[in-house]
């Protein structure tokens, strides 16, 4: 009898906790589904839906460049998902991707011993799981931890100096983790399992959608409502799929020094916020972490495909 009561109590506790866990991400899940629905509708038939989604695009762009019939998983490759011209160059470069040598450098860094005899393997036992685990909400610390933060904590915990958070070694090591996650076909699975995690998500969401800088733009002006449109000769990428392929090798970043060509997601976001006309938050600030947490959640269910390259 006592055992029966104990079992029932445990079952109720488990159910309640499962229900609560589901509740904490309810809003985020609603947002994600709405975002997927929006992009699928937008790119279903761009020419037919021009009045709703592409009022400023030319006939030529809509007929000959912007592809239609796209589904959620197609969006993981940024603007190459819909731009025929961009995709042609992308496929060509993909034959000999500029990321290869940096993945190898990253692997060397992963295995290199620290002065105390440990290595990154002591902090991150499984490179593929590491590549797929961040950003995550640490329930003990009650804050978002990004891969960049975790790598630097591993270094300092082992008596080493922190690395820069935008490029160089940081990006090279992250490319090794990303390549491992891609190889094992890991899927983005950001979890929101507490009220604090839900608050971090909402903070990031508000940051993304709030207008800022002297241009008074929010991120969505370009990457939700503006996605698929052209600014000068650049096609704007969509929020869906924006975090799945980092770190990224940008031809622009690598123009002067190829070792600087690979950059972290923080580097890209920082550049984007600067382009809005605002001093960006630091790469390890709460604002930046929550922003990446929100963005990553929007990509839940998509496969990792990093490291990748962009113009």
């Amino acid at each position: 009898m006592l055992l029966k009561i104990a079992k029932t109590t445990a079952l109720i506790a488990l159910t309640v906790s499962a229900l609560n866990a589901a509740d904490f991400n309810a809003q985020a899940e609603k947002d994600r589904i709405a975002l997927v629905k929006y992009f699928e509708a937008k790119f279903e038939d761009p020419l037919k839906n021009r009045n709703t989604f592409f009022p400023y695009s030319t006939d030529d762009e809509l007929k000959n460049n912007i592809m239609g019939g796209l589904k959620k998983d197609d969006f993981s490759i940024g603007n190459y998902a819909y731009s025929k011209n961009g995709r042609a160059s992308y496929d060509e470069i993909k034959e000999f991707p500029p990321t290869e040598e940096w993945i190898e450098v990253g692997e060397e860094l992963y295995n290199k011993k620290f002065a105390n005899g440990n290595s990154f393997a002591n902090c991150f036992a499984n490179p593929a799981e590491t590549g797929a685990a961040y950003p995550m909400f640490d329930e003990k610390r009650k804050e978002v931890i990004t891969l960049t933060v975790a790598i630097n904590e591993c270094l300092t915990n082992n008596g080493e100096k922190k690395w820069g958070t935008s490029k160089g070694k940081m990006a090279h090591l992250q490319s090794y983790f990303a390549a491992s996650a891609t190889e094992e076909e890991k899927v983005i699975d950001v979890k929101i399992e507490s009220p604090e995690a839900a608050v971090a998500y909402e903070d990031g969401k508000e940051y993304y959608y709030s207008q800022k800088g002297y241009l008074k733009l929010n991120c969505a002006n370009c990457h939700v409502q503006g996605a698929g449109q052209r600014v000068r000769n650049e096609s704007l990428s969509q929020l869906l799929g924006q975090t799945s392929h980092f770190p990224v090798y940008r031809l622009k970043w690598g123009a002067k020094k190829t070792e600087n060509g690979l950059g972290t997601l923080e580097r890209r976001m920082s550049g984007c916020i600067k382009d809005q006309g605002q001093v960006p938050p630091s790469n390890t600030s709460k604002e930046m972490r929550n922003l990446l947490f929100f963005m990553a959640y929007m990509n839940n269910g998509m496969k990792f495909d990093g490291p990748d390259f962009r113009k």
Partner: protein
Amino acid sequence: MKKLINLTIAATAALALTTSLHAMDEKKDCDVKANGITKVIATANVYNEQAKKKGLEFRRLNVNNSDLIIAVEEAIKTGAKEVNPMHFKGKKKSKTKLETTYAAERACRFAIAALTQAKEAKTTWRLAVPGDGYKY
């Protein structure tokens, strides 16, 4: 001398207090002709400090608004007609060159706009969210 220092402190404190209390108005507060360049740049300074604390400071063409303010303050001291603020990285001058009065007005407008648009965004940001305020 002591009196002068006290007077300056009191004036800055009073300005800080009044700027924090009255409704911000870019056009009115940043008008150099009406207020004088010293008052305009002092206003810029007060509001820009608030913007910085909130992570809202503007940056244009690699120039942080605080560096523009510093450049104007220096120009007021030296009487320079043109300012050439520092690059945000702090190691060299930027490519930006502006007429001093115009720079003061811009610095002031940037400082106020950073705060007013953030306040405005608190009620408008959801309008951009698909599935929430954004309809298509």
